[in-house]
């Protein structure tokens, strides 16, 4: 089974962010970067599928500047066989522009599965996976929390609001993976050493036209200063009064 996993380099979300002078990007100073949370789950799913149902190959793919190679190396250290960087100075916010570049690379790759994380934690849009599937004309299931593959067919579970769907699909397919499906492994020292010798190919990204642009970034408005209205159960009547009379939410 041949599986491509599309991953993205994103800032560590625990950091404190500030906005750069152009008001359209983050101040890069002091930022740390990592592979997107959900991408790690997608890669783990791919590695386990090949380990359990091999022979096969896991390829990690990213779109971005050369600094994005560090997450490709991480993917290789976790166990991917090779890596592809679609080189672009910046990753467009427009999911369709990114999807066009990925689809151009993936279309003749002969992949049985193309996996994505459910969304990148920075843009938080979750559009690139299903858009890539449409461009490739492949079946697609998004936000998968449980997955079984057998006889070139898949069965997946999607958690909805207050409900869950069971979905079946044929291979080849594009899947986006939710958290919790398989905890990403840590790269071993041996894996890290091996990753240095694994192939990492760089090609220019064929980005499509972008119809969605960042106009500005801003820090969220501070919530009006909250107040601690009291201690212990004695404060409860005042809380109920405020919720009723002031906030008008009860």
């Amino acid at each position: 089974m041949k599986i491509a996993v599309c991953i993205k380099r994103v800032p560590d979300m625990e950091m404190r962010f500030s906005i750069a002078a152009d008001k359209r990007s983050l101040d890069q100073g002091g930022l740390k970067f990592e592979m997107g949370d959900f991408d790690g789950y997608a890669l783990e799913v791919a590695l386990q599928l090949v380990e359990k149902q091999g022979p096969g190959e896991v390829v990690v793919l990213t779109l971005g500047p050369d600094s994005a190679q560090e997450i490709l190396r991480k993917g290789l250290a976790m166990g991917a066989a090779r890596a592809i960087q679609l080189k672009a100075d910046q990753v467009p916010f427009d999911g369709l522009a990114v999807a066009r570049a990925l689809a151009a690379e993936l279309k003749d790759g002969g992949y049985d599965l193309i996996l994505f994380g459910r969304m990148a934690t920075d843009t938080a849009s979750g559009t690139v996976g299903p858009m890539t599937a449409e461009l490739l004309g492949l079946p697609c299931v998004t936000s998968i929390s449980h997955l079984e593959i057998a006889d070139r067919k898949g069965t997946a579970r999607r958690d909805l609001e207050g409900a869950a769907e069971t979905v079946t699909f044929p291979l080849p397919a594009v899947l986006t993976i939710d958290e919790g499906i398989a905890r990403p492994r840590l790269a071993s020292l041996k894996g890290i050493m091996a990753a240095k010798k694994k192939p990492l190919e760089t090609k220019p990204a064929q980005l499509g036209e972008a119809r969605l642009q960042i106009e500005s970034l801003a820090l969220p408005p501070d919530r009006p200063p909250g107040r601690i209205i009291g201690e212990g159960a004695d404060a409860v009547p005042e809380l109920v009064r405020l919720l009723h009379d002031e906030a008008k939410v009860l």
Partner: protein
Amino acid sequence: MATFLAFAESRGGELRKVALEAVTAARKAADASGGGEVHALLIGAPGVGARAADLGRYGADLVVVVEPAALERYSPEVYAATAAERIKSGGYRAAFFPASAEGRDLAPRVAAKLGAGLASDVTSFEVSGEAIVATHPGYTGKIIVTLRLTGSPALVSLRPGAITPAESARSARVESGAPAMDPASARVVVTELTTGGAAKVDLGEAPVIVSGGRGLRAAENFKLVEDLAAAIGNAAVGATRAVTDDGWRPATDQIGQTGRLVSPDLYIAVGISGAIQHLAGMRTARTIVAINKDKDAPIFKVADYGIVGDLFEIVPKLTEEIKRVRAAR
């Protein structure tokens, strides 16, 4: 005059609240650009067309009902093909989808079919000449991204709860439509839909959420949270990631960066310290209440009202007080 489309999500033959939000948004866009028509696309199980009038109450002038017998459950391919064809043939300026589980699955497919721009998980928007300017919380809610969406049609998916459904009564015309592909030829098939029980109020639709964290100390103590939610009525129960990771509550109850993103009118955080990961999912709630024993817990920085102390004393008292006030009124 520009016409706008709203995708009206349904489940089991009933409209979801996000359908009314999408119609409200489309009405707002139409009114802001000269008062054009709003059309709603209602695809669903046979019989769902009976709900068309409800969409008219929230501002739809025309409801296109697609309810073939073979479409008992959501079908991503049939829905996407049908929506894309309708948007193309209808010449819409923009189409609004909910950023619900279904809408997040559907809207990107439609956008790719149309080659259209899609702004996702939008919390507010304005029509600005030829563009739509929309805000979207990114970076786990730590950055508000303002996006400029150009081209026609433009697609927008709306964060559930961000738009308050507003009535704008019209008696909508109803048109019967056909699916743009044969449901029998779909490759991706939803074979089963299991719902979490009829009594459960969904987190995305609940005006009030009572949420519990590690401070509750054990799974069985969620009874306190459930009792409070029941006393308030129309309230859903949520949880932090620590709690769902420990299996005290199902993973689907998780609110936060990696779980559900919610914007209820009232969010009551019980025994929750307020990790970034959790705040990302609930900081857009209109009113936040925190009950925690640690007065320095970060949750108090975002809470409009806080009570410091032992939740095992405070929460039952709060439940009683709400019942008492309700009974007195």
